[in-house]
Every structure is written in C-alpha cells, then in structure tokens.
C-alpha cells in the first residue's frame, strides 16, 4: 500500500491555508488599572449582566454607570483574593491607565478614571467566586470585563473565537475549502470554547487539524460517542483537546478544551463540495451564521436559539447563543477564493458582501472578501457566469485505493425550451413566522406577487401562510383571473411575520387537498427554513408529496439551505435563494422560465462499458430547464460514453455524455469524498424514514464515514495534545455568541 500519491496537492493546499491564516493579536484582556480617586459618579444601576445561576461561578455582579455631561468616573474595585488572579479588561478611554495592583492573599484595589460623554455607559463586572472550580460546566466564566460603551457603537462582548479564515479553491464545480477557526481566551481563567457554526449541507468534511502554538496535531475520525469520551477524558485531565461533531448536515459544533488565559488554539477544517449551477452561473456559498431555529413544543433534539448567557433556556440538545442588537463580538471573517472554471468566466457577482475580484486568466478569478464587510452575519454567496455555449455535460473521474469514482453534471437538453407547459395548479406557501418579520417577508411577498401576476387563466392558484398555525386564501385553488389575482394580492399584503414556525402545518395545508387531475400541481415554499426539526419536515413531505413538485425558495441572508435543498430534491423540483439583496422579480422570472417548459422526466442511464454501482442520488430527479443535476457514483472498467434517456412530455428522448478527455489526466481527490458524503446523506434519509432499520443503517453510515474519514451524525473528529497539561481539572464552558442573521429580528426569534 502506498499513500504518497496525491499528497503534493494536499500538502501545498495546507501550506497555502496556513499562510492565508491571519493571526490576530490582542485579546481585550489588557491588565490595566488606574489611580486617582473619585471625582463624581453621575448615577449607578446595579444589575446582572450575564444572568447568573445560583451558585454558578459565572455569576457576575455588574454595575452600570450612566454619565452626565463631562463626567469623570473614578472607580475603586475590590478584588476577591480567593478568586485568583483577576484580569480587568478595559475598553473605552481610560484617562489614566496603569497596571492592576496585585497582592496575593489580601483584598486588592484597582482604580480607574474615565471620562464619559452624555449617553455613554460604563459597566463594571466583577466575578463572584473562584473561576477554576465552576459549579456548572455550562456557565460563562467571570471575565472581570470593564467596558465602556462608545457613542454610535455597539457594546463589544469578549468571545473566545477571534477570527475565521476561509480559503477556497474551485476546480470546475468542485470546491476545496479550508476553514481556520482561531480561538483565543479573552478571560482570566481557563475555558472550554463551544462554537455552533454552519457549513454547506453537502460539505464532505474530511480533515481536521488542531494547532497549539507552533505544533499541529491531526485529528482522528472516531465513532461519535467514542470521540466524545476521549475528548471529555482529555478535558477533565487538563489537556488541550478539540472535538468536532455534526448536529445537522449543515450545523456543526466545535469544542476546544482547556484554553488558558490569553492562549490561542487554531482549528483547521477542510471540506469538499460541489457547486450548484443555475442558468449559466455557478454558485459558491459559504454560510457564516446559523439562523435562529424554531422547535416544536415538547421536542428536545432541536437547535435552540437563546440569548447570550442563557444556556439551557431552550431545552434543546444543541443551542446557539445570540448577541443582542446592541452587542457585537470581535469575531470576524476573512475569505479568499481561487476559481478555475475551466471555461471563460463572463462575470462575477457577490450577492451579500463587498469583494475584490482579480482577473487571473480568462478562465480564472481570484476573489477576496472586503475587510470592511467581515461580520459573520450573512452567507457569502458568489455567482459567476460562465460562457454558456461551452458548457456541456461531461464526466470527471477519480481513482484511488478505494476504487474508481465519477461525477457528472447533467444539463437539460436545449430543445426542452421549445415545448410549452401544461396548465398549472400553483400553491404558494409563505412562512409568516417571527423570523420572517420585516425585510424577509417583504421580499417573499414581492416574489409571490410577481409570480401570481404571471399566471394565466389556464392556471389555478392558492396562497397559504403558516406560523404557529396555517391559513389560506380560500377553501380551494382559484382560477387565475384578474379579479382573483387582485384578491390574492390583497390577501398577500395582509400577511405579516409573527409566531412560531409550524412548517408541517403549512405542508399539510399545501398537499392535503384533492389533486386537480387536469393541472400540474406545483408547490412553492417561501421560507427561511428556520426549524430545528428538519427531518420531521422532510419525512412529512415524502409521505404527502404524491404527484406534486416542490420548488423551495430560501429567503433571507442565511436560510437553512439543507432543508431547502432537500425539500426540492425530495419534491423533484428545484431550489432557489432569495437574498435580501436579490431582485425578487428577477428570481421569479427565472422560476417562471423553468416552469414554463416541461422537465425531462423518467431519467435512465445506459452506462456503456462501465460497471456502475452506488449512484447518488439514487432516485434520479427530473431535468428542469436551467437546472442541471449532479450525479456521482463508483465504477469499474474504463470510463466510457454513456447515454441518458427519458421522456419529454410523452415523447422518448436521449442524449450522450462523453468522458472529458482533457480532464482524464487530472486528479480530483474530492470526488471520492463527495461521493461518500452523498451516500451518507442518502442513508440518513433512509435512517429517519425507516426506524426498524436504524441500527443497520447507522452501522453502514459509521463504516462509510470512518473509511472515508468524513464527518457524519455518527462520527466525529477528535484531537488531543497529550503534551500540554494545564493546571486544574477543566475550565468554564463558554459558548461563542453570534449575531442573528442580517434582516432577522432578535426580539421575535431568540429565547431569553
């Protein structure tokens, strides 16, 4: 066995990723103090800053000083000597900073003088007990933070995640992405950092490296429970360790244990994924924040959305903590992308972020995220238009020790556009939950409004809205006459976002009524997909779909793309995304173009001389105009041309797919990982639908994930540095709080 082959690219990519990392110094933990005595304190309000729990070490006493005109505030801070060494992070403008005096065994006084302007606030937060012996593992540590709120700025919250560096390389439609999370302890005691973050739902996470100082330790893929046990052992024994688990296909939890004050730990994750191609443009997406999920009552395995410091409030097994609108963290993101499209690139557009684009060659671009747009509160979406007439369906192959793999993007035949569609029964389902309140629902309404007005009297339509319950325009779909359309628009404009996200209610309302046999039923979901019960929703969709087709529209800056993509896949339709920066008319025109022509249905493939197995997706979807389908599988024998057959309306049709000869000599390491990831996703769909086969399916998923070193629901990466042993058992657990996605209202989505 020889595993040297194909290491050059991997090593080079690692080096590239390493050089791309930007290590940020400074932790907001400057130990400063001041002298001088009080001159004046305008007013003071005592309150708890972090919702301390009784007996919890993280309980903090806070004092807020509001300033009057030209106030100077001098503080004497008594420090509990039993609490160990106290750090006093000072942010703002201390007029007389000096080092904090320390005197072990005796009370210590730190003094600070501040000048505050009207409207400014000075917070003094003191920790109440020994940080090294937390009563609760989930309580934030005392940070002794001393912060001044500046005019026109948000209150900065110290967080243990300083920076995320993303470096992507795209070859054709396969992306290799290195994500480096730079953790740093801004507190004065040891911590465990917990960060719940998103990745693309088709990301095949295959590498994990922890960097401690100058030393890099490659993580090992293990069965999830085993990895967690190893991590917990290491954590309790004081070793620096990290654990990466998957909560949903697009939601992951990173834990890093025993980060000492001021110390940095980097985590590098590498994944492969395929890009979507849509009407002549490829789309690269890097999600930056998990949107606040709604969980149905009585569920505990969802994704909770809670305010910062409110761990456990949601009752869910996984929680994301959110910053209030008045807070910000120092966590930022850098992103660079190298695109090698293989064909000429006509244009590049970043949907949500400012970017700099450099033309390398006609087929290559270098894209860099602007430093001024580095707050991780919206998905990075880059669409690049390629020369359409040169795009052809072609097969890429890869061979390694596991065997041979192929992937191909099947493009619909051009003559599909010549055939007109049959009458439609259009059902628009609008998410009117609290997370859609404001700009997202405005966008969705505008999109539906345009789509409704594009219907003809041959069609019927229905508008359904759901939040905590579902309601609809009428008892049954109505003919799309001008009068009915006007009635529909009036109804649409009356809808607003509030309440829960009982999406299944919307699904039932959309599919639980008799099918009009004379029309083709098409259901369009307009939602951010912020639910914690993704699989329940997908199972319900599978059960109720019938002959309907689902077109899902992910609304907003950071929709639940896993749910949207899977709904469209199961529903044999297509997915589209409607960012707040998109033109809803343009998006819906593209939708109308797709549904204006029949799809190529009943696909079948003659594999020629190739012996093909394990093809994913296992049920071939329809080929819709403007929307190709990626198919991946394994094979033996020599790659050869294949023939794709199907029907256009009632007429049989077929087209040939050639092996990309120019590509044959290239190496596509990612294909094997992408294939294994698709296999796992397919097995997980079966897992959630066939409980009687759960044990067997779990074993197959685990085996596949271990064999290909991939993240899955049942596997996890763990890395332990046995060389570093910190003092004490383990530190306090600190969640990395994040912003709610841009456009989403904290008040209507986050539990406190």
């Amino acid at each position, binding site marked *: 066995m020889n595993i040297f082959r194909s290491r050059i690219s991997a090593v080079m990519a690692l080096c590239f990723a390493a050089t791309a990392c930007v290590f940020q110094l400074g932790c907001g933990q400057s130990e400063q103090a001041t002298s001088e005595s009080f001159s004046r304190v305008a007013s003071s309000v005592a309150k708890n800053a972090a919702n301390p729990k009784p007996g919890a070490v993280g309980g903090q006493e806070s004092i807020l000083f509001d300033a009057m005109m030209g106030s100077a505030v001098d503080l004497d801070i008594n420090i509990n000597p039993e609490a160990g060494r106290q750090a006093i992070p000072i942010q703002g403008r201390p007029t007389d900073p000096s080092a904090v005096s320390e005197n072990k065994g005796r009370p210590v006084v730190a003094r600070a003088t501040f000048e505050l302007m009207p409207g400014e606030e000075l917070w003094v937060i003191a920790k109440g007990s020994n940080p090294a012996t937390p009563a609760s593992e989930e309580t934030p540590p005392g940070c002794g933070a001393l912060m001044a709120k500046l005019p026109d700025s948000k209150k900065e919250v110290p967080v243990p995640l300083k920076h995320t560096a993303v470096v992507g390389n795209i070859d054709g439609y396969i992306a290799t992405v290195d994500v480096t999370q730079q953790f740093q302890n801004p507190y004065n005691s040891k911590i465990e950092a917990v960060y719940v973050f998103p990745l693309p739902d088709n990301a095949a996470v295959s590498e994990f490296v922890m960097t401690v100082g100058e030393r890099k330790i*490659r993580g090992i893929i293990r069965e999830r429970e085993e990895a967690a046990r190893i991590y917990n052992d290491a954590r309790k024994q004081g070793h620096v360790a990290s654990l990466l688990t998957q909560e949903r296909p697009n939601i992951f939890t990173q834990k890093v244990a025993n980060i000492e004050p001021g110390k940095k730990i980097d985590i590098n994750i590498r994944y492969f994924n395929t890009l979507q191609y849509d009407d002549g443009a490829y789309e690269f997406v890097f999600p930056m924040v998990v949107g606040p999920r709604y969980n149905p009552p009585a569920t505990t395995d969802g994704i909770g959305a809670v305010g910062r410091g409110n761990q456990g409030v949601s009752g869910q097994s996984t929680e994301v903590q959110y910053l209030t609108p008045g807070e910000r963290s120092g966590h930022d993101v850098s992103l660079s992308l190298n695109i090698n499209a293989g064909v000429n690139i006509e244009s590049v557009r970043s949907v949500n972020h400012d970017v700099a684009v450099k033309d390398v060659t006609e087929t290559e671009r270098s894209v860099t995220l602007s430093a001024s747009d580095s707050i991780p509160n919206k998905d990075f979406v880059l669409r690049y238009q390629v020369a359409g007439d040169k795009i052809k369906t072609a097969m890429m192959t890869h061979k390694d020790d596991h065997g041979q793999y192929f992937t191909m993007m099947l493009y619909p035949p051009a003559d599909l556009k010549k055939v007109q569609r049959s009458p439609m029964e259009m059902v628009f389902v609008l998410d009117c939950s609290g997370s859609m309140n404001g700009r997202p629902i405005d966008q969705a309404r505008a999109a539906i409004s345009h789509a409704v007005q594009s219907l003809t009297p041959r069609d019927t339509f229905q508008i359904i809205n759901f939040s905590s319950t579902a309601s609809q325009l009428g008892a049954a779909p109505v003919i799309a006459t001008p009068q009915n359309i006007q009635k529909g628009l009036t109804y649409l404009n009356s809808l607003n976002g509030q309440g829960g996200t009982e999406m299944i209610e919307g699904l039932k309302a959309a599919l639980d009524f008799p099918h009009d046999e004379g029309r083709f039923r098409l259901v369009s979901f307009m939602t951010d997909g912020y639910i914690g019960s993704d699989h329940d929703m997908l199972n319900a969709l599978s059960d109720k779909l019938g002959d309907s087709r689902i077109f899902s529209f992910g609304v907003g800056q950071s929709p639940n793309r896993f749910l949207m993509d899977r709904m469209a896949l199961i529903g044999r339709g297509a997915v589209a995304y409607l960012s707040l920066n998109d033109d809803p008319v343009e998006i819906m025109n593209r939708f109308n173009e797709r549904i204006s022509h029949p799809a190529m249905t009943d696909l079948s493939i003659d594999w020629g001389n190739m012996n093909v197995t394990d093809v994913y997706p296992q049920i071939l979807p329809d080929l819709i105009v403007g929307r190709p389908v990626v198919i991946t599988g394994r094979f033996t024998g020599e790659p050869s041309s294949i023939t794709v057959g199907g029907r256009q309306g009632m007429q049989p049709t077929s087209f040939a797919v050639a092996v990309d000869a120019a590509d044959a000599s290239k190496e596509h390491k990612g294909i094997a990982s992408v294939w294994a990831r698709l296999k796992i996703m397919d097995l997980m769909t079966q897992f959630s639908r066939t409980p009687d086969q759960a044990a067997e399916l779990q074993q197959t998923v685990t085996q596949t994930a271990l064999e290909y070193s991939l993240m899955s629901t049942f596997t996890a990466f763990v890395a332990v540095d046995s060389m570093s042993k910190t003092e004490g058992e383990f530190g306090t657990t600190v969640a990395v709080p994040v912003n709610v996605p841009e456009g989403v209202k904290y008040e209507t989505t986050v539990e406190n």
Partner: protein
Amino acid sequence: MNTNEPTNSQSGSRCLRIPLCWALLIAFDVSLMALTYAQEGNTGTADPPVQSVQTEIPGPDDVAADVRRFEAIDVFVDSGNQRLAAWQLEVKSTANDVQIVGIEGGEHPAFAEPPYYDKRAMNNNRVIIAAFSTGDNLPSGRSRVARIHVQVRGSGARTWLSELTTSATTDGSRIPAEISIAKTDR
C-alpha cells in the same frame, strides 16, 4: 491429430539443443543482471527489507485498571547520511487498550506538518502514516518524523511494533533507514 506436429515433449527437448556460444551468452547476461541488481541495491533503487521493531513503552504501575491517561510516542527515522525526502511507516500497539487520539508532525521543518494517515488502515491502536517533502532542506541522520498521541487505559508498559515500509530520497530512490520509537518526555 497430425503426427508431424511436434509434441510438447519434443518441443522441450529441442529447446535444450542450444549452441554453446548461446548458452555462454545467456549466462553472461544473467550475471550482468545480477550485478546490476546488486548495484541498484547499494544505490537505493531496490526495496530494502522492511524491518519490524518491537519496543516496550513504560507506563506507571500505580494507576487503577480503568484509569485512562494520555501520552505521546515519538517516531524516529534514521536515514544515515542520506537526505530523507519521503517515508511511510506503520505503528501499532499489541494491546487493545490503546487509542490513537492525534498525529503530530516531526521536528525537522520538512516534516513539521502532521502526516496523513491511511483512513482504511486506521484502527484504535494501529496507524499507517506517510509524508514527503519537495523542498531542498531535508533531514539526515536520526530525526523525529512524527509524534503519535495516544490514550492508554490502566497501568504498566505497552508493547509497540513499528515498521518502516518506505524511505526515499527526492528522486524517489529507496534508501535504507531505521525506525525507532520512544515515549515522549513532557
């Protein structure tokens, strides 16, 4: 059956009737090939025999049987006066109560990156790792090429087996080298 056709035995006996000069020529060629093979062995293109080394790694005697502790094992390759550009090795414990929990790179900059492991060969107590360097700055002599972090349950020493399956120079020539492992001093 055509009786004029030679049988197999006839054909075989005919092969034996080779002129003496041809036989000498063949013998010379065989000798030349043997010599070339031997020289290649000296210059490194032949595969050196794979050596398996057994090493006892000491452990504390005063811990309970169910206590799990973490330690690290350094893996060294000694390539003598040759510059080591690539290597592949296998390390495994004979005990089942050992878990590999991380793989770190070596001491020389050429092998500082954590090596890749063979996913399929990875087991709780067994790993195959490999690395190569395309740079000019390469180690010679004895150099730590990797560090394996492990979790061990219970007390006492553990026996480890290590095999260096490949060691090569920048041009891909195999070179003789020795593998050794030792417990890492904290």
